[in-house]
């Protein structure tokens, strides 16, 4: 049964420990988490509990000190460096600070993600408007980022992360810079993306959102998994 679960997992942390060379305290300790395809997972815990490290390990931006991270059935420690870009093409990323290019408009920002992986222009012209509509920015394709509200900017970032139809979407505190009312809209977009079959992993501090959504919750504390609960809430509900 456990084996089956591992096989189906799109992300699998197998006893992962990460110690940064500059620190003595491990950022993650003996973490075992399997995330299945199409799951929506909240990663909660205080600052410094290892949430960002967790996400960076999935992208192979960091290597585990011990243990193995598997993504889409592949052991990342066995993935050669030149294949890492191909791994990242299957993972979309959204951050608290949006990370948009200020000199490009909405369309260009989203199209950038496809241009730099060499997609043909006709494909870009077809796909980008669809995604802009999907995140709810109809008619705003030619706005510049500084003409948009925080929530709208985050929608652009989500569109860029999703435009290549990734298997996994990683969101690192996507609502961290956004007021609660707008956050609900962002969550709806993420939910819509999740419903297309994309696995979503969202690190967050936002208790209200976690409580409202009732999805799987993994709580980290000092680099350890202290709770892994399906349909969980933010606080200590047990």
């Amino acid at each position: 049964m456990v084996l089956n679960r591992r096989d189906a997992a799109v992300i699998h942390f197998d006893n992962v420990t990460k110690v940064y060379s500059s620190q003595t305290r491990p950022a993650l300790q003996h973490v075992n988490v399997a995330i299945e395809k199409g799951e929506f997972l909240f990663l909660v815990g205080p600052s410094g509990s290892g949430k960002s490290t967790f996400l960076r390990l999935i992208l192979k931006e960091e290597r585990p000190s011990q243990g193995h991270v598997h993504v889409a059935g592949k052991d990342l420690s066995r993935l050669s460096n030149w294949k890492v870009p191909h791994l990242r093409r299957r993972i979309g990323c959204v951050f608290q600070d949006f990370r948009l290019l200020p000199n490009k408009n909405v369309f260009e920002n989203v199209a950038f993600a496809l241009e730099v992986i060499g997609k043909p222009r006709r494909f870009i012209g077809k796909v980008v408007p669809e995604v802009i509509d999907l995140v709810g920015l109809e008619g705003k394709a030619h706005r510049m980022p500084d003409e948009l509200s925080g929530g709208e900017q985050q929608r652009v970032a989500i569109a860029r992360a999703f435009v290549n139809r990734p298997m996994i979407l990683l969101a690192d505190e996507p609502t961290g810079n956004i007021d609660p009312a707008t956050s609900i809209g962002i969550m709806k977009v993420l939910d819509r993306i999740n419903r297309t079959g994309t696995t979503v992993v969202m690190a967050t501090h936002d208790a209200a959102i976690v409580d409202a959504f009732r999805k799987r919750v993994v709580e980290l504390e000092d680099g350890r998994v202290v709770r892994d609960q399906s349909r969980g809430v933010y606080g200590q509900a047990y």
Partner: protein
Amino acid sequence: MRAQFVFQEIWIGLRRNLTMTISLVITVAIAMALFGTGLLIKSQVDDSKSFWYDRIEVSVYLCAKTSTTQACNKQDVTDQQRTAIESQLKNLPQVADLQYENKKQAFDRFKERFSGSPGFVESTREGDIPDSYRIKLKDPSKYEEVAKVARGLAGVDQVINEREILKRFFKIMDGLQWAALLVALIQVVAAVLLVGNTVRLSAFNRRRETGIMRLVGASNTYIQMPFILEGAIAGLIGGLFASVLLVFSKLMLIDRLAGNVEMVSQLGWGTVIAVIIVSICFGVLLCAVASFLTLRRYLRI
């Protein structure tokens, strides 16, 4: 890979640190121009050397009343001495060819050789150059043996090896060539450091873009290509300026020099073009490689 996108990125990169790019272009232009000039001088010297060394002769000047050397004692050479000299020299094993040249022939030859500097010719009169035997040697390095015999003969004023005179001239040209190449080398070092700085600035300016490119899975080549091409294009523009400078140096320096001191073998445009092509390729390659090496330090992949 989409060319239009890449070129757009390069254009943005070059424009953003325009002053750096300009200084890079200038440095590369000077470096490559000096490098090319060094090559031009070298091929000119090589050409002239083979031309002259084929024609090198040892001149054995015969005594004349105007001669100041003691051996002559202010006497013209006698016919008897002359025949003795001729037969002696002819029988030397090192001598390939022996020709007698009287005062008139010598003066005509002098006029012809220095036709480029009329002032020099005008100040010389027929008779200033004495009669001589002009010897072609089988092996130019055996000069001393012949000279020793010739100096011992009665009626011989001076023995002059033309090779020695030319050697001095070629030494100057060699010096020029090495000076040009040395300054070029210093400029190349400056160019490499400038490329490094330009690329570092460029990478810093575009860290947001490259960060996103990394994140969405752009390949390393795709991320690095605009920076490397940026360097290469600056190198190319520098190389083009250098080729203009090289054409100038061909027209102003070498052609003029050839007009003054008749070099006979003129450096052809073919050589100049070859040198230009080598210089441009070297400039482009230099900048591209320098960019690539800098990127490895400043652009985390």
